[in-house]
């Protein structure tokens, strides 16, 4: 079982990297297809547990403590496998 954690800047916090990528994609001919680009990071954690609910709770604690800076970032946790 593993946890897939996605962390990215909150809505309303300007994502300068996303903006640069949006611009680059635009110059590559994708301009009409795109209205916004946001950049995040994905953290994959291999878990030693079989309890999905409990695991999700624990991984959310990890997000609050270390994986995300909740001043500027949001996170989501998905348990798979």
């Amino acid at each position: 079982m593993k946890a897939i954690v996605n962390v990215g800047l909150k809505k309303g916090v300007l994502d300068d990297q996303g903006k640069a990528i949006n611009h680059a994609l635009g110059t590559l001919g994708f301009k009409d297809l795109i209205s916004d680009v946001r950049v995040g990071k994905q953290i994959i954690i291999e878990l030693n547990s079989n309890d999905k609910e409990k695991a999700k709770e624990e991984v959310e604690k990890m997000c609050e403590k270390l994986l995300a800076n909740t001043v500027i970032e949001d996170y989501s946790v998905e348990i798979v496998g």
Partner: protein
Amino acid sequence: MKVAVLQFPGTNCEFDAHYAFKKLGCDVEVVWHKNSKLPANTDLVIVPGGFSYGDYLRSGAIARFAAIMEDVKRFAKNGGKVLGICNGFQILLEAGLLPGAMKRNDTLHFISKHHHLKVIDNQNEFLRLLNVGDVVNIPVAHHDGNYFIDEEGLKELERNNQILLKYCTKDGELTNMNGSISNIAGICNKERNVFGLMPHPERAIEEILGSTDGINMLKGFLK
């Protein structure tokens, strides 16, 4: 005066800070992050610049959990003076000792150059030897110096005069060089004993370095 300069894996400005405070006549000690206690009689803690833990995850995110940080928090809570420079500022933000957070520079470039700063508040030990409105020339060297705080937080900083330094031109006109909200380069906590700034005053202490404007900033802490 006893100055403790913290050292994490990846810190690279600890000896610049050591040199600068030694030059000012202080007793300076570099303190390894695994130590659980600051040296006895520490008057000032410097969290220096560099790339602690390779800036992995986020700048300062991992360093804040180092053993020494518990004692730094206790020290700060008891009114001890703490100055975070560059990566040190990022660590203090991550540790919650200062409000806000750092984002990647909006230019997406690593910015390394001398830059002018305007003194916004001097009612604190860090900038007491300078006047409000003074313009100082101090080097900056960072990739993640785009200071962010939400609207309410910004109002609070303004209300409590916690904004200490802003980026400006040599004529003192405010300018935005990295995306920082309200051009902020340096702040302090509400209690005015924890300070953080992105520029490096410890690198502006001799003519040969291009500026001596950092001296009167660091000197402010001296008893």
